[in-house]
């Protein structure tokens, strides 16, 4: 039994290594054209500790345009073309409640992979998942430093998460049954790695500006394909 497990580990490591060597990458930027929308100021008077965390006032993160003209918080993922089964990673994805906002606001996770929800604030939050394909939850996190672990049972683009105490708090989680996803940060770039050779449909999702899809085909041998998506000011 023990030997068998060892063999299993070895075999998994071996195939993972192989996938890395022969797999391709789809990378690129999410460009934003036009004038960046003025971010709505969030009034955090409802909770003194939230207000304290933002001495200069908090801005809505609904549409954040980076200084290099790219769009933040875009979820980019392979929508079609993936075959095979991908086991959920054991390591959890972190989802923090910090300064009465979610960090990150947009993230991806695999079905069955643990989502670690953390409350870094000296106030209470509750996390309400509005998933439609996984059972919803609404859990209080009254203590600073408190952690919760949750998993999603079915793919869903996107699961909205909100805090019912602080109505401005919203986060979006892309749940997929494969690991081919990425979310843009402060530089607006994304990178989907370890893709087996094949033809794919890649979708970019943004909470305000909607979705866009593009087709891409990648070969083996560390092929790197660039994709660029472009959103326009509404």
């Amino acid at each position, binding site marked *: 039994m023990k030997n068998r497990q060892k063999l299993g580990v070895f075999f998994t490591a071996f195939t993972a290594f192989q996938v890395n060597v022969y797999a391709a990458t789809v990378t690129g930027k999410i460009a934003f054209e036009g004038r960046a929308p003025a971010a*709505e100021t*969030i009034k955090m008077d409802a909770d003194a*500790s939230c207000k304290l965390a933002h001495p200069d006032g908090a801005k809505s993160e609904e549409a954040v345009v980076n200084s290099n003209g790219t769009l933040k918080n875009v979820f980019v993922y392979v929508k079609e073309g993936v075959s095979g089964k991908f086991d959920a990673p054991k390591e959890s994805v972190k989802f923090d409640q910090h300064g009465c906002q979610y960090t990150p606001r947009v993230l991806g996770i695999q079905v069955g992979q643990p989502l670690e929800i953390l409350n870094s604030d000296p106030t*209470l939050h509750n996390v309400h998942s509005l998933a439609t394909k996984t059972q919803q939850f609404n859990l*209080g996190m*009254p203590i600073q430093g408190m952690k919760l672990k949750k998993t999603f049972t079915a793919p869903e683009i996107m699961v909205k998460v909100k805090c019912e*105490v602080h*109505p401005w708090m919203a986060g979006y989680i892309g749940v997929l049954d494969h690991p081919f996803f990425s979310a843009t940060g402060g530089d607006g770039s994304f990178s989907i790695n370890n893709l087996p050779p094949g033809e794919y449909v890649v979708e970019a999702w943004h909470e305000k500006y909607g979705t866009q899809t593009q087709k891409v085909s990648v070969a083996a041998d560390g092929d790197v394909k660039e994709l660029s998506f472009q959103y326009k000011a509404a």
Partner: protein
Amino acid sequence: MNRLVHSYSKFLSAVTLVLIIAGGLVTSTESGLSVPDWPLSYGQFFPPMVGGIRFEHTHRLIAGIVGILTFVLLGLLLKNEGRGWVKCLGAAAALAVVLQAILGGLTVIYLLPTPVSVAHACLGQTFFSLVVSLVLFTSKEWATAPKIASENSESLKRLLATTFFFVCLQLIAGSVVRHAHGRTLNLHALLAFLIAIHVLFILVRILRDADLQPLVNHVLLLTGLVTLQVFSGGGAYLLTLVIEKAAYPRTSEVLITTAHQSIGAVILATTLLLMLRSFRLLKPTELRTSHE
């Protein structure tokens, strides 16, 4: 004889109206799930009053007070009231309060399912009407006022019963609009039109008949409320369903939707009372039968 119960019912009606407004604020600020557990709040009696919890927990506290006050009312009725059917109404109010608390809990546990929210809204206003009707049933007018003969009596009663029926339907339609994001909006508008027309007919009938003088103030109040309601409804429609939603409810939106819902509760009770009073006070003229 029922002075105590009468005054007490008035007091409970007032507190209940405050509760309806507090409940309305919970819905309008979307704070219904800000406290994820029930009946305790974050495992305590007094959670930190921040954000949505301010609305939800205040609602729970007032609800608790109304619950206790209702059982006191039932006690008063059992002790002081002679009429069995009035005692039954007190028991019904107590039952409603318990059911209402259970619905409130279900809403929290099952994450705000629309049917539960609608039922909670309708039962809340029904409870309010019930308590208000007890004010009438324990009043001096109800006990001693002589019957008024009017040739309009029977037609007015029919008109009021129809209107009350429409207002009851409107309570359901309105709460569906509120809790299902604009569903049944057309029905809600149609009922609003029907109610407004009927109230206009009632107003004219009462004003033109000198015998119906005791009902004049009452119908004027009802007319004023319905007028106000049409405008607040229009405002609520514009703010919640026409202009683009903000990331979270604006103060203007919160105030107008809560007002619209609470005025609705008062219209329901006012219509019910006017109908009950007409049934109690009016009789057909004796010499000739009603010409309708």
